[in-house]
Each structure stands twice: as C-alpha cells, then as structure tokens.
C-alpha cells in the first residue's frame, strides 16, 4: 500500500523546485501566435506580453519532459502507482505583478502546497493536488499561480463513457396539456400540418384557439392548414435558468404567420425581427410532435 499522505508530505518538504528556464525570451512572434489562437484582438501587445500568457512561456513543448524535482510530476507518479490514474484540472488562479517586456528571460519554480483526499467525486474517488508556481525575471517574482488537479480512479461501473449529467432533452421536455378545444392542433402537428382555428360561423382566424368565437359567438370552430410561412415578430434568446428538454442558449420566436395569426416556437438560427421563417415538425414520441421554426429563403 502506498501512503499517499506520507509521500505528499515528503514532496512538500522538498520546497521549491530548481528554477526552470523558459525556452525563449519574451518575443513578438509567439505573442502574435497566442493572440491569434485565443482570438484576442487587443492592439496593445507590441511591447509587452498578454499577462494570461505567462504559463505558456515555460511550457516544455511537444516532446518536453518534467524535471525530476518537479513536485507535480512526482505526486502524479505516486498517485498513478496508487491506482488514481486519471487527471482533470480543476482550478487555476493566477496573479500578475507586472507586464512582461520583450526580451525578458523567464524562469519558473514550483512547490507542492496541498494534497487532500481521498474524496468521492462525480468522476470517481480521487485526490486534489495543489501546487504553487512562481515566475521570475532574475530574482524578481513577476507572476504566481495556484494550480489544482483532481487525480482520480475512474468510476468502474459503466463500460462506456459516463452518461452526461443532463438527461436527453426529449425525455423531460415540458408537454402541452391538451383538451377538447386544442386537440385539433396537436393532431395536426402529428400529421405534419400547422392548423389555425377558423370560426365555423364568421371565418375568424384565431390562435391560441378557444371554444367560442369572440366575434360572432359561434361554437363550431373549424381550422385551416397554414402554409407554415411567416416572419419573426419578436424573439428571446434564453440563457438562464435551465429549461427542461432544452440546451441553453436557445431562441424562442414569436412568428406572425402569413395567414395573420401569431404563434410561438423554438427557432433554429440567428434571429432578427422581420426574418422570414417556415415551420418544422419534430416528433417527440407517438403522442407529441412539436412545431418550431427555421429560416426560409425569401421566394
């Protein structure tokens, strides 16, 4: 049996690793590559490096190896042996003391701050390993980082990947309640028809529907089948909170159909008021088919 805590104490006692030099001095080509990769268009990084890039300068490269006195490497090895073979980074808190200028030569030292466990997590049982790194220019500390990983034993149970936390959308989507006044609509969606209530007396089109025509008082509602074309009258991009059966963010559009009534539905696309859309039907199960919208090329 490996005593993880005892090994951790031994590594922590070693203190800081020896300074490890960056491969290259701070330089513009690498800054430009990084900005491009991150998508940062700030024009100010011509004399100094983006602070958040600090860890990049001392990365070991594609075929790099950890130094023998690197405490994180040592701790990983011990936990591997103890059966905690998987790793996931959980926290990275960086503090920048000043900007780094072109031509400066960085080095980094690292110490082991803390190892706690074993903890039961959603990924499996594991240990949280926290290290503290300091970047130096000469003997001036220019940046620091507290870095935490979870080194864990993958949960044994499922043969394949663990199920995502969220259940499949269709299983838990909110279902409409249906009654005598509205069942024609949901029968229609099952058949691929978007039905609009039309008064059997005066012909008034109406959505949402109801049992008595507010215009003429008739109680013989019929329906017509919409062409399913219209324009976005208004829309919402929903971010919070989570909605059962939906992946945020998503768009709900209030569509004014060409026949003249408005109807809500999810919209798949970049929305704008006035945009032309057409109906799409998505079968949830045998009982329920939901109408929604997608962009439609004009004419």
């Amino acid at each position: 049996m490996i005593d993880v805590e005892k090994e951790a104490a031994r590594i922590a006692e070693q203190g800081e690793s020896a300074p490890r030099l960056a491969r290259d001095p701070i330089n513009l080509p690498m800054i430009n590559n990084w900005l491009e990769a991150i998508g940062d268009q700030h024009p100010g990084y011509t004399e100094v490096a983006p602070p958040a890039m600090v860890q990049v300068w001392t990365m070991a490269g594609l075929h790099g190896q950890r130094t023998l006195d690197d405490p994180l490497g040592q701790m990983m090895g011990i936990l591997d042996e103890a059966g905690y073979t998987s790793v996931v980074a959980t926290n990275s808190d960086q503090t920048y003391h000043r900007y780094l200028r072109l031509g400066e030569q960085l080095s980094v030292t690292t110490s082991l701050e803390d190892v706690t466990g074993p903890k039961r997590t959603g990924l499996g049982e594991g240990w949280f390993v926290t290290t503290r790194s300091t970047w130096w220019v000469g003997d001036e500390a220019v940046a620091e980082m507290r870095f935490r990983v979870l080194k864990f034993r993958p949960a044994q149970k499922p043969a394949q990947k663990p199920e995502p936390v969220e259940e499949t959308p269709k299983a838990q989507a909110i279902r409409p309640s249906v009654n005598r006044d509205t069942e024609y609509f949901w029968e229609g969606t099952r058949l691929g028809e978007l039905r609009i209530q039309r008064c059997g007396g005066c012909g008034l089109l109406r959505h949402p529907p109801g049992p008595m025509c507010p215009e003429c008082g008739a109680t013989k509602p019929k329906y017509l089948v919409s062409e399913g074309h219209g324009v976005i009258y208004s829309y919402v991009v929903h971010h919070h909170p989570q909605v059962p059966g939906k992946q945020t963010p998503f768009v709900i559009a209030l569509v004014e159909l060409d026949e003249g009534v408005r109807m809500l539905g999810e919209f798949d696309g970049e929305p704008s008021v006035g945009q032309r859309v057409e109906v799409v039907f998505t079968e949830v199960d045998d009982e329920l088919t939901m109408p929604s919208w997608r962009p439609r090329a004009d004419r």
Partner: protein
Amino acid sequence: MNAAIVGIGATDFSKDSGRSELQLAAEAVRAALADAGLEPSDVDGLVSFTMDTNAEIAVARELGIPELTFFSRVHYGGGAACATVQQAAMAVETGAAKVVVCYRAFNERSGHRFGQVQTAAAANIDNSWSYPMGLGTPAAMVAMFARRYMHEYGATSEDFGRIAVIDRKHAATNPHAWFHDRPITLDDHQSSRWIAEPLRLLDCCQESDGGVALVVTSQERARDLPQKPAHVKAATQGSSVDQFTMTSYYRDDLTRLPEMGVVARGLWEKSGIGPSDVDVAVLYDHFTPFVLVQLEELGFCGRGEAKDFVASGALELDGTLPLNPHGGQLGEAYLHGMNGIAEGVRQIRGTAVNQVGGVEHVLVTAGTGVPTSGLVLGQG
C-alpha cells in the same frame, strides 16, 4: 373611497428567513396591527392574493382573530397587490367588514422560486402555447415584449438599465433594503450576464423571503388611530382585450400594456387627479422594460418617449416624478409589490427614509404583463 391604510408591518427581507411562510405572515400582520394601534380582535376581514400559501383562516388562527366576516383572494399573483387594498376598501365601504388586513408572505428565495421554470404550470391550457416551446420563465416572457419595444422605438439595453440604477441608488440609502449600501452603475448593468436576451441579470428583480401587511379601515375610524392615515383616493383593477398571464402576444401592439391603461383611466377618473399631480410613483419593477411601458400607459410621457423621460433625470428623488424611493423590488425586496404599497403609506405619513418633500399623492402599481391593479394614496 371611504377607506384609509392605517397600519403597515413587515418582517425582515432576506434570502433565507429560517421560518415558515405562515410565521412570516403572522409576524407581518401582528406588526401592522401594532402600528395601527389595533388588536387582532378588531380584525374582521383578511385579503391576500394567489401564489401565497397562507390561507386566510390559518393567519386568523395564528393571530387569534376570532371571527371573520370577509375574506378574499385575488387572482394573477403580483398583479393583484393593489387589488387587495381595493377589496379591503370595498369591504369597509359596504360594511362587509370594519377592519381588513391585506397580507403577503413567502419564502420566495429559500423556498419556491417563481423565477424558475414551473413545469407544473404547463398543465394550464393557456401555458401550453408557451411552456412546451421553451418559454417558461417570467424573465423570458417579458423579454419577448422588450425585444419588440426596442425594435419599434429604438430603446436600448442601457435605457432599461437606467431603471435598475435608479432603484439601486434609492435602495442604497434604505437600511431595510436587501441592497442597502450597494448601488450599481450603468456599466455594472451592461456587464451583467444575459438571462433572456434582451434582459440582463440586473434587469430582473431579486428574489426575497419576507412578509408585508397593511391595515385598512374607514376614514372615520382612522381619525381615532395613532398613525396619520393614507387615504385610498382610488383603487382599481385592469384587464384588457385578449388578455393572457404574461403572454398577451396576440394583440395588435406588443409595445403596450393596455391593462395598465385600464388601471390608469380608472385611477385618474376616480381620484380626480392626473399624472402631473403625482408626487411619488411606486411602479412595479419586476423587470425594467415594463417600467418604461408603464410610464407611457400612465400618461407621464408619450408612446416610445419613456427612454428620454428616464434619461432626463425625472425619476430621481429631486426629479419631477421620484420613482420607488425605497428602492423598489430591484433594490428593497421582491414582496410581489406589497412593500411598495407600504412605501406609499410612509411617503404620505412623511416617515420614509428617502422622504420626498410635500407629498400629497402617491401612485402605486401592481404586477405588469398580467391582469393588474393600481392605487392612488393621498393625504386626509
């Protein structure tokens, strides 16, 4: 109306009250009666509104109120806040009851949160045209109106944000407000995360635990009581054509709140005052865009002009129409508008922490986007 609010009471406003909703209701009612100089045995009427779990008879039991001759519960949640006072005033005027207490109490943050998706609400046939499509929160439902309002009138997210900034500014100097001493800037608003575009987090009111109660009796009785009465000059409800709860999307115009227009007409007719006579406006502010629309419906400015009216500084404490001096629901607490009525009473009494000078008339409105209500309170 021959009625006055003679007592107000509240619990602390928190995010976790640590007690039952019934206890909050009982504490608020007891505090309001103490403020009014009345005993539980004086009470013969109780009114609340839906989305409150405290039955009238349960509140009566806790307070030791022996007999009730009038009890009522108004529909449509926050839209009913001012309607409780209307019910109480009508009961007092007709003799159905002599002393009526209106109350609201809930653990809306630590318990059941209205801002989450209410899956059970989809059982309502009206909601079956919105919830299954993914439109299932009050913020998103208001956002649908707000997007169209922006489209038609050129209003921006910043125009909405100015309402939040004013409310939080007023709350910052109100020790009872949850956001006491925590004002925000327009930049804070603009950098707050999206909830339901075009609404940001700071466009949405907070969630609160707490209780508020109001004591209503006749103006004659009020003369013998210790507090300066706030007379009910007018109280009315409003519902309009093709009305839905939060989703009246099928009317010709999505930039209006015609049910608030109904309330406005009723209030001005019954009270005999007009918009220019209002000294303090306590407008329901669960979501900022509807404060702009209310300003237009109530006649403080023209259609589409609210953004300019707000930007002019009119809603500041020293402006022409001081808005929510207690901080509103965005700043003080979300008690479904009842805390706003209590603020109206304090402004009439002259005892508010952010007291406006020379207040003759206070306008209070209730929930927007739903069948709603409003009040004009005045000096005796």
